[in-house]
Each structure stands twice: as C-alpha cells, then as structure tokens.
C-alpha cells in the first residue's frame, strides 16, 4: 500500500477539503492506486538529468514600471459573497498569519 486512509485524510485537511467519511472511503483506495502507478517514474535512471520546469527556454521576461488601468472597486468586488466597507468580508480567521 502506498498511502493509508489516514494519510489521505491528512492530505484532505492540507488541501482544505472537508471530505465526508464516505468520500474518504471511496477516494482513499483510488488515490492509493494512482500513487502506486505514478511512482513508476522512480524506475527511470535520471542521474545528472536536470529537471525541466519551463519548456520554452525563455528568460528575463519583464514589464516596465508603468501604471496600467485598475479594476474599479465595484468590478473587484463584483463576485464577492459578502462586502462591507468596500472590503471583502470573510468569516473569523482562527490562525495567525504564517
């Protein structure tokens, strides 16, 4: 087994997914199967092979320090579930900023 149900529950918490027990029962074995399959990459001999994070080979793409038009506050807040004082109203935050 590559990953236990408890570990999957932990991943769910890290990903902010409040999975029900039924879902966990259903998803955990699937995730286990997938992880076993993707672990196949470890078979590849890759000594000295650099990883590729960007396929284009581009570097140094910059923009000038010049202002461009902003959204209006109405546009910015247009999708917000709750607004107060022209700000995004969010429920009480428990943890301090990391």
């Amino acid at each position, binding site marked *: 087994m590559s*990953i236990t149900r408890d570990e*999957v529950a932990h*991943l*769910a*918490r*890290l*990903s*902010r*997914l*409040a*999975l*029900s027990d039924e*879902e966990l029962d*259903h*998803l955990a074995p*699937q*995730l286990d*199967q*997938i*992880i076993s*399959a*993707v*672990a*196949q*990459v*470890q*078979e*590849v001999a*890759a000594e000295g*092979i*650099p*990883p*590729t*994070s*960007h*396929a*284009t080979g*581009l570097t140094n*793409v910059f*923009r000038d320090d010049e202002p461009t038009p902003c*959204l209006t506050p109405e*546009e*910015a807040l*247009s*999708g*917000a*579930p*709750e607004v107060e004082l022209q700000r*995004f109203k*969010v*429920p*009480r*935050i*428990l*943890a301090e900023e990391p």
Partner: protein
Amino acid sequence: MDELITMTAAELSAAMAAGEVSAADVTEAHLDRIAAVDDQVKAFLHVAANDARARAREVDARRKAGEPLAPLAGVPVAVKDLFTTVGMPTTCGSKILEGWRPPYESTITQRLRNAGAILIGKTNMDEFAMGSSTENSGYGPSHNPWDLAKVPGGSSGGSAAAVAAHMAPLALGTDTGGSIRQPAAVCGIVGTKPTYGGSSRYGVVAFASSLDTPGPLGRTVLDTALLHEVMSGHDPMDSTSIDAPVPPVVEAARHGDVAGLRIGVVSEFAGDGYQPGVMARFTEAVELLESLGAKVTEISCPHFKYALPAYYLIAPSEASSNLARFDGMRYGLRTGSGSAEEVMAATRETGFGAEVKRRIMLGTYALSSGYYDAYYGKAQQVRTLIIQDFDAAFGQVDVLVSPATPTTAFPIGERADDPMAMYLADLCTIPTDLAGNAAISVPCGLADEDGLPAGLQVMAPPLADDRLYRVAAAVEAAFNERWGHPLLAEARGLSAR
C-alpha cells in the same frame, strides 16, 4: 440541415465577403441549430444569443460601410468555458464558479472579438479541464453527435461536440494532456495543440500552467488553421508567451503536401490497450502518407512510456496550487459556517467534483516535503528525457505520427469512476504536452468495430506548427477523395429536426 451550418468557416467567410449572405443570417442559422439539437448533445453551458445577434448586426453594418474586415468576421465560434468572457458566465465546468461573471476578458477571446468573430456561447468541459470525457463536468456530460450514448472526449468535449454537430464551425479549446486532440479524434473533427507559449494563457483559467495550451477545433484543416492564426501570437500579459511570428499555418493548410517528408511512426504507441479498429485506420493513414510521397520509418521514443505517470504528477501538482484560490472568500460559491478555515473547506468540498479532489490531493502529496524529490522532482526529470527523445527523433524525421487516442469514443459511464482507465485516453497525446511542441489530430476513418471516428495524430517540433497543417491538409484531401465526402457526413447520431 440548413446549408449555412454545413458550410465551412472558410466558405462562410467568402460568402459574407461576397455579400451572398449576412452575418445575421449565419448566426441565426447556428442559433437555430443549437436550439434544434443541443438538448441531445448538451454541448453548451451558455448560449449568448442576444450578444451574438448584436455582434452579427455590427459586422453587417461595418461591411456595408465598406470597412475592411478580418477573415473570421461574422463566423460563429464556440468557446470552452475555461476562457474568461465579459458579459457571459465562466464556470470552468465547476459548481464552485456557478454564475461567476469575470470582470475581464481573456486575450484570445478579445482577439476574436476584435476580428469580428461571433462568440456564440460557452461550451461544456470536464471540471477545470481535468478529464477525457466531460463526465467530470459539474453540469452533466456532453454527448457525442456520432452516438449520443458515447462520450465526446474531453476535456474540450463540449467544443468538439458543438463543431461535430454543426452548432458552430469553429471552437476554442485547451490542451494540457490531450484535451483538444482526443475529443477532436473521437468526434471526427480536426483539433490542434499549438506550440506551448504560441497562444496566450491570459484569461484561461489555469489547470497545469506549464502544460495548458489554448488551441483551435474545426471541421476542416483550413478552418482550424484560420482560427489558429487569429488566436495565436505573443501576449505581454503572459510571461510564458513566445515572442515570435505565428507560424504560417493558413498558408500551409492551403498547400497540403508530404512529398519527400520524413515521417516517423512512434513504436511505443501501439500494442495492448489499442483498439484494433483504431490501429487499422492508423495503419491505412500511414500507408496513405507513403503513397503521397512521404518517407516512413519507425522511431522509438523509449521514455514515452513514462509520460503518463510523469504527467499525472506534474499536472496535479500545479493544479493543486492553481485551484487553491477557490475558497469562497472573493468570488464563486461560499458555503458552510464557522471560521474562515471551516468555510473554505466546506466550500471546496461542495464545489469540487471527485476527480478535481483526487488531483488536488495527489498534487499536494507529490509536492510535500519528503516526497518532492521522488515524485514531482523525478517527474520533471522524466520531462527532460522526453524532450530529449523528441529532439533525437526530430533529428531524423520531420514529423512523428501515431493514433491520437487508443480507442474510439467509449460509452458514457464506462470509465467515469475508474480514474486509471480514464487516464489511458491520454497515452498518445501527453508526450507533446510535456515537451511543449505542437500536434494535430485529423480524422482518418471509422473503426470497424463500432463505426466511430479515429484520429491520426501528427507531431512537429516547437514552432513548426505549419508543418502539421501541411501534412494534415494532404491527408484530409486524399481521404476526402477516397471517401467521396467529409467523414462527418456519416455521423448519424442526431435526430434531424
């Protein structure tokens, strides 16, 4: 069917330019078609009827005033619901964005608007582009016009179905693991994954940032090229956008020719899991290419067999990060109660479907400290090896070919809860996404077992997108001559109304 909906985009463009038909009539004909068949196909999540009619009238007025108009002016285009469009909802096939109306437009749809194209609606897709069948859509699957009990492929399944069902001559899709080419293949149409960076991702909701490539779908090679040209090109709003001229794809599409071209058949893309009928049509396509003057050899790309596992590490990893923003704080669904942390978790639990949850957790796992090197890190190395395989191959041949996908369209429901089986649909398409080069799927016949379409995939080096169209156009012309009609004429899935 009304003639206007059987004409190609190129033909419609010429007809409108010649004053033979109005943009308003073209748009109306397609809106009628949508009304007639989309309750069977379910390709569209949103039909922008009023907006389309208004834009069409504008095009007619400008043409009447003698203004020079771009080739796609007045041509309807269906837009995968992954592109942000002002004035239309953008759901990404997810309940977490139900009803969201973006306050800004994607670069590509803006370019289409500027060219006078008619954005006729937003099409269904697998949620956040994760899937190969549209069954992962939060709004129900789309149906293959060839056989409504079959999937139209995915994730750009709605776009492919819309084009195959003549609801629009052109459609926008995105390809991350094969999400344009595979639906194009199983719907019997043409679809291209441009070179990564060749088309702007600004306004394209991100699934896997280093792989996502917006691209065109159409019923013909030329139509697809026309859309490819308009949508492509450098965008300063996208740092990964290539600053180079768009390859001359339209020119190439008009001059299909493979004489003297060196073609490599990828030996890894055959064997177990490949439907015999699909392989038969593929083999015939290769023979056809040879008869047209191409030089065909077999090429081995030994690391391609690791492409699938590498992809299913890289893509979910990037996705787990890209999708973190959907938390109910700023837009979209908000549900649950209690603290911000609880509301975030409840919102994501309710708003995301099972496949998205699987991939988010998989990505979180692969990036975790202690696992990063063995999983994500290793996958990035495999990616380098795949690029090297392509480089070596393209040192010997001009293009590579393979089936676009191992099987024809599978039944709706068959793989829906079997992720590993679903992932196999991407076997042939994934390597090009990892390497960032260009590939196209063009119809190459119907499989004997089920009479459903199969696609020939052609792959070219980065920035050689035109080469794809040159080959595809030659194949298309030769097949059309052999069949006597375009393949789509055989699609019988829809009740004619």
